[in-house]
């Protein structure tokens, strides 16, 4: 039997530590790159390419974006992993339960994407 408690614990702790480290790094970079106070505006990228370029250039905004992606990915990862753990343990009922949660998460991602397109 795969240990569900342990698996969930590891996902959450890795998500917590890695996002915190990335955020602290990003904030330090922010003050190094902006000696004068700056407006907190929304960060938008027109393409994936632009994001990658900013990331490689170690722009604070791109690093903080990575921390945010890590955070949002954590609960999704833990739902996905729980589907796998229940499947490994042949717990069919809970594969269906956690699979439904996973499905709803995917639907909201798609919904957000189209909503984004509709408002430009």
């Amino acid at each position, binding site marked *: 039997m795969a240990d569900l408690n342990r698996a969930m614990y590891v996902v*959450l702790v890795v998500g917590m530590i890695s996002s915190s480290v990335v955020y602290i790094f990003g904030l330090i970079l922010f003050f190094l790159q902006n000696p004068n106070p700056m*407006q907190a505006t*929304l960060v938008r990228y027109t393409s994936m390419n632009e994001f990658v370029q900013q990331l490689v250039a170690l722009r604070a905004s791109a690093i903080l974006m990575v*921390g945010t992606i890590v*955070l949002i990915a954590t*609960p999704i990862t833990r739902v996905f992993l729980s589907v796998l753990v229940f499947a490994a343990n042949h717990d069919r009922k809970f594969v269906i339960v956690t699979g439904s949660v996973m499905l709803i998460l995917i639907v*909201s991602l798609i919904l957000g994407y189209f909503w*984004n397109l509709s408002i430009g």
Partner: protein
Amino acid sequence: MTHALIEITLSFLAICFLTAVFAGFFGGLFGIGGGAIIVPFLTVFMGVPIHQAIAISLVSVIATSNAGGSSYLEQKITNIKLAMYLEVATTAGALVGSVVALLLRSWVLFTIFGLLLSYVAIANFKSRSMDERRIAKNEFDNAKQDRISKYLGLKGSYFDAAQRKQVDYRVNGAAKGAVISSFAGVTSGLLGVGGGIIKVAAMNLFMNVPLKGAVATSKFMIGVTAAVGALIFFVTGLVNVYVLAPIALGTTLGATLGTSIMNRLHSYVLKVAFGFLVTYLAYTMFVQALASFGIMMPMLG
């Protein structure tokens, strides 16, 4: 799309961070995300536009759920299966919530939540000594289960450090609990919260789950509920990462502190403190409902 004119200085970061530690601490104690503290703080004091505040709050709820959720997993208080079962209802509710938000007038929503929170506050005060009494008599373990709870094998146990007793319980009222939890999801997308207040109440008052089991399980769940809204807001580009970073770091630290002392406190202390917090939040809901009619009431003390 509004762009906030927020100037990022060290003191701005420090105020955000410290407020988030405070919100995270109580969130850890009560199994909630602290979004109900973060959103008014950002909009009223920091001048952040409401949609950005909701987006920031949703992601910070994930941060506090990672920190607090892992702590309660380590303490073996979390009921993972119960969490997974209720997550179906809360995530579906969160998805519906974003659609309903467009259909209903805001004062209607605020009034509904205000009434719901008032009920939770009163129920917490009234049931303040219920948990310890029922734990002493092993009543949580002697409950008759409904068909869903029995079929899914929903039961749990943990060690209550304040009462120095192993607590076993059997879940019941699974259908009722799921319906109430779906409301928790609806509030999440609308208000930028994890819906923890409603989840804890659903489990503790309607599903025969002792308070501490409900707190730990809710803390674990809120991250997934908030992820639904966070995903939508993130893809839409409304997450202001400069404000989010200090808030997320603060709630992480606060949740770590809160969850490390929760089990040592007596349930009635938690319930009374929780009752006061929820009373205040119910008040803010009514304030916002009245504000839609131009009636201004004092807020935040």
